């Protein structure tokens, strides 16, 4: 990857990682009803690297595979194909590496489901401490838990309470304290603020930024909310149907999006700056991942689709005619220069009405 040409080993690296799920009907149904096997390619050949201290954002609509990537990295799923490396060493399941595992933690979306309602906060936060080194108790752990709680903006006395006594934002702080307990270097955050109200989301995002500065953390930050990713990430990967279609430094991605899907997403985001401004709605929906379109999976929704797009899967390549470090894009049209030069955000390229498609209304608001 161009960003790592300097030779530094990235902290986390994914090389052509794929995860397929077998969602076939049971054997008897397949035989009697002649149903074929069905394979859901949730993640299909994803490669990226995250440098130490960096925040990589991963965005995409539901079903694009972003959460599966998170689960693959922390080892909740085994990859069907490909390699996952931490600090240069492989950590995908065949070569288990508990030391590397301890260095990564995950923060989940739903702070109501991810905390055990029967445990006191002090036990929840201390669990990773105890799990690593036998079941030790005592003042050392208590002191560590207290300092963790204070670090995330809770009081020492909150340790003796139960999760139900906290609001959503405070629960997410508890999740963060638990994740930090083992002194990890890398946090995988899967939609950590999606269940929170905006003012609480701001508190949690500010907290995560402060912790990153203080503890030199590296984040993989997954969200469907482009504005949140824009705020927190250094680089952003855009996923569509199990693949990364564009990967670029945040400022470049939002200022000059290349891939038609990225442009479409940016056009679709309702933003405060857009009061009363006309806007074009986009056509079509994410196709069924069980029967993805041929070639570039975005081609049925893409106004620039050509014959080659229907046939050939585009690979992630550096943006043509751009300075080094401008990121990568997987699009034949961009590669061949068939798309008008990168539009500024807000300048819509989606004016061509698409008659015939199911939601072919391209309304000007």
């Amino acid at each position: 990857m161009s960003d790592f040409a300097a030779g530094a080993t990235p902290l986390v690296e994914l090389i052509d990682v794929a995860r397929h799920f077998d969602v076939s009907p049971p054997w008897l149904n397949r035989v009697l009803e002649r149903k074929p096997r069905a394979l859901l390619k949730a993640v299909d050949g994803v490669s990226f690297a995250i440098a130490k201290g960096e925040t990589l954002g991963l965005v995409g609509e539901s079903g694009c595979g972003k959460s599966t990537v998170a689960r693959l990295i922390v080892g909740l799923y085994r990859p069907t194909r490909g390699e996952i490396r931490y600090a240069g060493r492989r950590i995908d399941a065949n070569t288990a590496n508990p030391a590397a595992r301890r260095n990564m933690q995950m923060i989940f979306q739903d702070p109501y489901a991810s905390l055990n309602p029967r445990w006191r906060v002090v036990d929840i936060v201390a669990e990773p401490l105890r799990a690593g080194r036998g079941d030790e108790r005592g003042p050392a752990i208590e002191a560590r838990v207290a300092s963790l709680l204070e670090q995330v903006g809770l009081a020492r006395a909150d340790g003796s309470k139960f999760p139900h006594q906290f609001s959503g934002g405070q629960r997410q702080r508890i999740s963060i304290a638990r994740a930090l307990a083992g002194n990890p270097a890398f946090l995988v955050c899967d939609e950590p603020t999606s269940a929170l109200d905006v003012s609480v989301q701001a508190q949690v995002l500010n907290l995560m930024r402060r912790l990153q500065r203080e503890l030199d953390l590296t984040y993989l930050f997954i969200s469907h909310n482009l504005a949140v990713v824009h705020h927190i990430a250094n680089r952003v990967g855009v996923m569509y149907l199990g693949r990364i279609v564009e990967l670029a430094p945040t400022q470049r991605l939002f200022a000059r999006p290349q891939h038609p899907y990225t442009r479409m997403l940016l056009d679709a985001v309702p933003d405060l700056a857009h009061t009363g401004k006309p806007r074009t709605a986009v056509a079509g929906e994410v196709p069924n991942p069980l029967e993805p379109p041929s070639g570039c999976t975005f081609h049925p929704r893409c106004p620039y689709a050509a014959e080659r797009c229907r046939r050939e899967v585009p690979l992630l390549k550096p943006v043509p005619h751009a300075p080094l470090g401008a990121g990568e894009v997987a699009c034949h049209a961009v590669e061949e220069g068939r798309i008008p030069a990168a539009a500024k955000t807000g300048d819509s390229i989606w004016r061509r009405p698409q008659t015939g498609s199911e939601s072919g209304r391209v309304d000007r608001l």
Partner: protein
Amino acid sequence: MTGGALLAVEGLRVEFPTRQGTLVAVDGVSLTIAPGEVLGVVGESGAGKSLTGAAVIGLIDPPGRIGAGEVRLDGRRIDNLPPEALRRIRGREIGAVFQDPLTSLNPLYTIGRQLVETITTHLDLTPAAARARALELLGEVGITAPKRRFNHYPHQFSGGMRQRVVIALALAAKPKLIIADEPTTALDVSIQAQIISLLKGLCRDHGTAVMLITHDMGVIAETADRVAVMYAGRIVEVGPVADVIHRPQHPYTRGLMGSIPTIAAEREALEQIDGTMPRLTAIPGGCAFHPRCPHAFDRCRRDRPELMAAGATRAACWLVLRQAAA
């Protein structure tokens, strides 16, 4: 209130009797919606925005009840009508679109049957005419091949398409007002944009007024004409959408706008309102926002502010008076 208003809510209070006493979830809310206008109602969870919408269409679940206030549609009082009369108004004069399209549709009936049933309940049409109207509606909300889709069940539609069907159902009897409670929250951004533009286009074409309830300021910014911001059961600020977003007067609105990450601006840290919205059991005296407000002074702790003119908007905040005096 104003004579031309389609919907006028005056001093609405929604309360829940409990063993510990009566909880007031919506307290003294007054608002109006003009014909063809989109009024956004925003707030964080627990602010009372959904209950305000439910009260308008008479869908407050017992033991909750409207404790005080009036709801007038076209000048006619509708909050004290018997359930049967209210049921006729719902659907005929006020349509509703809720967050989850799957729970708004009956999974056992085809969408065609549900549409025809709704149409014949409210309009005096023959079955054939109702069917024609249903097909017309499906086309209008952007469902292609309506004839084929007519006989499909809700599970055969995607989330965005289902929400289109729900909108078709809400429009079936040509209501004057639609209450849309988080209509796009369960949808992906690209689908969300489609549904917003659909709703907006339909309102423009039919002159339907919309009460758009959502927590998403971005949706409000693009869709609403005016916006009411709710906090702890009360409206704290109301005004034209551009003024409320770009020149908010109430400290809560200001904090709320500052806390929203946007793509347009590069910010080091988001503005932060410390603390959380109070629970219904512990709403502070005076201005309910005063414990979190950086500018609170004596009067805020003592008296409860009512909405007063502030800039281009109206805000319920004593600072407005103080600034005017200074």
